[in-house]
C-alpha cells in the first residue's frame, strides 16, 4: 500500500466522510408562517417578507399575500403594502429611517392569525475594511475563469466576551468586468454574512465543518455593511448560525428551532438595526 493511500484511510477512519443521501422528510400539515423583517436606519423603503415553510429547501418559498402589516413607533404607524411583482414582499408606504432609539412594534394579521414582535436599534461603532488575499494554492479554486482570484478568511471575530455584538453583510459584485459579461447573476455575485457575538459555541470552531470558501476576481466591487445587534437579536443570530453554517460537523449539537421574537407561532425575526457601510474595489 502506498504511503498516501494509508494516509487517506487513516484520515477517513478518524474523521469520517460525507455523502449525498436521499432522505424523505416528514412533511407537516401545519402552515407555519415565516417572517423576515430587518429595518435599518437608512432612509429608504423598508421591506419585509412573509412566506410559509416548504419541505424542499431549494424551492422558492410561497409568499403570503393579503397580510395586513403595520409598524408602530411611539404614536406613528406605518403601513406596509404588498409588492405586486413579488408575492410575500411587503414594502413600507413611504421611505423612512428606522433610527429612533425607542421601541418598534410590528403587527401582522394573516387570515385569522395575529403575530406581533417588538425590537429596538442598538448603536453601531465604526469598522475597518476587510482583508483579502490572492490565492496561490490553486487547489482551492472553484472556477477557472481567471488566474487572479482572491479570497478572505474572516471579516470579524466570531466571539467577543463583552465587546460589541454585530452583524456583517458583505456583497461581492464582479458582473461589470468584461470577461464576466456573459456569466449568470450567481456566477458574478456573492453574498456572505458573519457575526460577532458574546456567546461561544464549540461547533463554530469545528475545523472539519468549515463553510465552502468562494473566490472573486480583481476588480470586484465589495460593499461591507455592519449592523448593530441588540441582545435579543444576538440570541436569534446564534441559533441561526447553529442551524445553518455551524451545523453538520464532527461536534454536532441537537437540532432546535430558531429563537424568535414573534408572538403567535410564526418563525423568523424582526430586527431594527443601525448600519454602517464601506465600499471599495479589489485591487
Amino acid at each position, binding site marked *: 500500500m502506498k504511503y498516501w493511500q494509508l494516509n487517506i484511510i487513516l484520515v477517513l477512519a*478518524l474523521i469520517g466522510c460525507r455523502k449525498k443521501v436521499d432522505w424523505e*422528510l416528514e412533511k407537516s400539515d401545519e402552515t407555519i408562517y415565516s417572517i423576515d423583517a430587518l429595518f435599518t436606519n437608512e432612509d429608504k423603503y423598508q421591506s419585509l*417578507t412573509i412566506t410559509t415553510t416548504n419541505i424542499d429547501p431549494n424551492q422558492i418559498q410561497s409568499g403570503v399575500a393579503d397580510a395586513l402589516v403595520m409598524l408602530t413607533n411611539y404614536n406613528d404607524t406605518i403601513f406596509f403594502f404588498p409588492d405586486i411583482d413579488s408575492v410575500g414582499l411587503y414594502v413600507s408606504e413611504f421611505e423612512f429611517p428606522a433610527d429612533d432609539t425607542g421601541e418598534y412594534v410590528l403587527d401582522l394579521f394573516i387570515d385569522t392569525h395575529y403575530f406581533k414582535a417588538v425590537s429596538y436599534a442598538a448603536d453601531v461603532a465604526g469598522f475597518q475594511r476587510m482583508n483579502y488575499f490572492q490565492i496561490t494554492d490553486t487547489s482551492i479554486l472553484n472556477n477557472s475563469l481567471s488566474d487572479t482570484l482572491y479570497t478572505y478568511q474572516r471579516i470579524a471575530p466570531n466571539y467577543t466576551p463583552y465587546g460589541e455584538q454585530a452583524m456583517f453583510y458583505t456583497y461581492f459584485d464582479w458582473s461589470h468586468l468584461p470577461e464576466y459579461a456573459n456569466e449568470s447573476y450567481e456566477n458574478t455575485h456573492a453574498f456572505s454574512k458573519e457575526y460577532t457575538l458574546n456567546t461561544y459555541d464549540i461547533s463554530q470552531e469545528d475545523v472539519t465543518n468549515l463553510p465552502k470558501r468562494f473566490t472573486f476576481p480583481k476588480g470586484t466591487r465589495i460593499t461591507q455593511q455592519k449592523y448593530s445587534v441588540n441582545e435579543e437579536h444576538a440570541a436569534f443570530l446564534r441559533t441561526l448560525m447553529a442551524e445553518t453554517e455551524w*451545523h453538520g460537523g464532527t461536534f454536532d449539537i441537537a437540532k432546535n428551532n430558531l429563537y424568535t421574537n414573534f408572538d403567535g407561532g410564526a418563525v423568523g425575526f424582526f430586527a431594527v438595526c443601525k448600519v454602517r457601510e464601506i465600499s471599495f474595489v479589489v485591487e
Partner: protein
Amino acid sequence: MRVYQLILPFVFLFIGLQSSYSQDYLKNNVNLQLNGLTADSVIQRISEAANVNFSFSHDQIDSDKIIDFSSENLKVSEAVRELCKKLDIDYLYLKKQIILKPKKVNTDGIDDKEKFTISGYVKDKKSGEIQIGSAIYIPEIENGAVTNTYGFYSITLPEGTYNLRVSSIGFNTLNETLELNKNIKLDFKLESSLMKLDEVEIIASEKQDEKLVGHLDKVSLSPNSLVGLSRNFGEVEVIKSLNNIPGINSHGDGSVFFYVRGGNKDQNLILLDEAPIYNPSHMLGFFSSFSPDAIKNVDIYKSDIPSSKGGMLSSVIDIQTKDGNMFQTGGYINLSPIVNTFSLEGPLWENKISYYLSFRNSHLHRYFGENIPMMYFRDFNLKLNYKVNENNRIYVTSYTGRDDFGQRIYSTNRVGRTVFTGFYEEGSFGWGNESFTVRWNHLFSDKLFSNLTFYGSNYSYDVKFEDTLGINWEERIQNRSLKMDFTYYKNDRTNYRFGAQVKSHFFNPGNITLGQSDGTVRQDLLNLPQVPMKQSGLFNLYCDRDKKIGQKWNLSYGFRYHSWNNYGPTDEYIYDDNYQVIDTFTFGTDQTYFRIKDIAPRLSLSYQIDSFSFAKLSYDKTVQHLHLLSNSTSPFTTIELWVPSGPNIPRQFARSLTLGYYYKNRKGDLKFSSEVYVRGLHNQIDFADHPNLLMNPYLESSIRSGYGQAQGWENSIEKKFGPLTTKTSLNFSRSWRIIEGVNNDEWYPAVSDRPYDFNLQLTYQKHQKWIFGGQVISMSGMVFTSPTGFFNYQGSVVPYYAEKNNDRLPDYQRVDLYLTKKLNKNLDKRVQHEVTLSVYNILGTFNFYSVNFNQKLYANSISTPKDLIGQEEYISSAFGLGIMIPSINYSLRF
C-alpha cells in the same frame, strides 16, 4: 467537608480493632483434667483457671449434668468449644463474658454442628497475582464462595470433610479434600492452563454456576475472555466491547459513549482501581483510555448494583488493574499501526512487593507531514503491590492519560534526527485523566475483611487560545475520597458488606484563564464572564446482606445512604419561572448552602427452579449527583461540562425492576438468559432550545429536567459447537422522556432509545495456535430531529422542526473479523509471541453519525455555503464512517 465525615470511617476501623483486641484473652491456655463433675462445677473451674466470666440461665442449660472434661494445652476458646460440645449447647463471646445458651435449631430443622471457617486467597501460582471472581465450590453443600476484588474468600461450615473445587478462567481447576475441624487459612495457587478459547468458555460457564446466585447482574471480563472480543485498530477495547453485553448500546463508530438500559451517557460510573474516570476516551473516542494489557478484571453491573458501588444511575464498570508478578520479571510489547504498548512487571522484593507499569502511545502523526495538525495520546499505568503480612496488603495505583490535538513541534535530537517533541500551545486542545489510589486490605479475622481506599481523581479539558499571554479555556472535575469497606462472612449462608465513604468534589464548569509569568492564574484581568466554580461533599453509608433461605431461595438486600452538600466559596443564581436571574447569593469558604439526603434501597430475590435454571427478581434505586452538560449529538468527545446537583439542578434518581430467567444445560455448553426490566428515571436532564453552555455564568438557565421511562427485554444465548463458540444476544427496548419546556411538554424518544439490538460473536479454535473470530452487530439507528419544512431568512435557508427526535438514522450494522496466529513452535515457552490480523467493518457499511440538510454539493466536496447566492442546490447529506479498516498487530510476552 465536615470533620465528622472525615472521621467516621476511622471510627469504623477503630471499633473493628477494639473488638479484635478485646478478645485476646481467648488465646490464654487452660489446663484442666476433671472427671465426674457437674457442668456447673466444670464451668466454675474454667472460669477460675482462665479468669473469665460465664453467664447462663439454669433454666436453659442442664448445669447438673455429670461430665468428664479435659483441656490439656487448650486455649480458652478451644476449651469453651469442647465444653459446649459435651453439653450440646452454644456460646457467644461478649467482651470478657462468655454467654452459654441452648443450641439454636436452624430453619432447616437441622441442629447446628460446630462451625469452622476456611479463608484465604486464590492466586496465580506462577505470578502470585490474586484472582478475582474465582469460585470455591463445595459439592457437599452445593454452595461455595467467590473471591472478592482482592482475591479473598471466606466460608464457614459445620465440622466435616469437604471436597473443594477451585476454578478460575484461564487456570486449571484445583480439587482439594479438607478435614474441617478447626479454622483454616488456606491459599489456593492455581496453575495457568494452556487452553483454547472454547475451554475458557466452559470454565467460565462452570464458574458462573458455582457463584452464589446473588451476583447474576454482574458480568465479568477477565484478560482471557477479552481475547475473544472484537478488535479496534488491532487492539482489544474494553469499553467498546461493552456493546456485546445485552442492555448496553454503543453510540456508534469512533465513540466510547454507551447507554445502559435507556439511561444517558453520563449515568455510567467507570472505576479504575476504585477511582472514577470521567472521560475514558483517546483520539476523540476511537480508543479508550485503558491499556488492555493492564487490565486484570472488569466487573460490569447494569442493575442491582451493590450498595458499595453506587453513585451513578445506570451502570458501574469496575476495572481492576494487574498487580504485577511477585516472582519474576516479565513484559509485554504490542505493536499496531496506530498504537504501541509496552508493559513491564516483576518483583521488587520476591513474594513481598511487586510492580506493574505500562506505557501506551499513539504514533498516527508519523504518517502525516509536520505541518498537518495531528492528534496524539499516551497513557501510563503504575501499580505497586505490597504484601505486608498475612493480614495486611497495600496497593498503590497511578494512572495518567492525555490527548492533544494541534500543530506539532519538531526538534533535532543529539544524533541529528528530527523528532516530535510536543505541541504549539496556541490553537491546541486536549484532555486528560489522572487518578491515584492507595488501598489497604486488612483482615480483622478470618471472617471480617476490610479495605481502606483513598483516591484522588482529576479530569480536565483545555483549549489554548493564545500563547504569549497564556490564555486558556479549561474545565475540570476533581475529587478525593476516603472509603472504608468491610465484608463479614458470617457463615455459608449469610454475608454482610458494609462501609462508609466521604468524597469531595471540585468543579470548574469552563472558564478562560490567563497564565502569568510567575505561574499564577488570573481570570479577572481578561474581563471575561466567570462561571462560578463549585465545591461539594458526599457522605455515603451502605450495607448489603446476602442470605440463602433454605435450599432454593437467595435474598440479597441493602441500602446506600447519600448525604450531599454544596459549599462555598461560590456564587449561586436564583432564577424566576422564565429562567431569568433575579438574585445572586455569594457563599464564603466552607459555607454549606445546600444539602440533600437520600436512601437508596435494593432488594433481589432469586429462586432455584431446578439444577439447571433459576429466576430472579430485583429492585433497586440509584441516585446521581454529578451531571454532564452536553448538547452534543456527536459520537466524539467534545467540550462537556460536569456540574454538581445544587439549588438549580436536582439530583437524578432511578428505580428499576428486573425479572430474569437463567438456564444452563447439564453439559454446560448451552446457556440462555432472558431479562425484562422497567425503569423510572427522575430529574433527567435535557436542555432548552439551543442552550448556551460555554462560558455562560447562567448556564443553569438552559437546563430542563423531567421524567424518563425505559423498558426492555434482553435475551442471550451461548452455544458451543465443537471448536466453534457462539454468543448471541437479541434485545428490544424503548426509552422516553417527558420534560417541561422541551418538545412542547410532550413525550419524546430519548437519545438512548434503540428499539432493537442484535449481536453475534463467533470464536473458532480448532488448534491451539490459531484463533479465528468475528462479530456481527446490528441495531436501530439513533433518533434525531429532522425538519418538517424550511424557510428563508436573509439569504439563509433555515430548517423548521415540528417535534424533537422525530426521525431515526438508518440501522447501525457492522461485521468484524480477526485471525490470531501464535508464532511459537512450543507453547510452553516463557516467551510467547503472536500476530493478529483484524478487519473492522469488513463490509464497509456506511454507518451514520448524522444527517444534514444545510449543505451543498460542490465539485469536490459537500459543505455548508459561505456564499449564500451560489447556484448549487441544497442536498441531504450524511456524515459517517463507511470504510473497512484493516489492521495488523504483533505482540510479544516474556
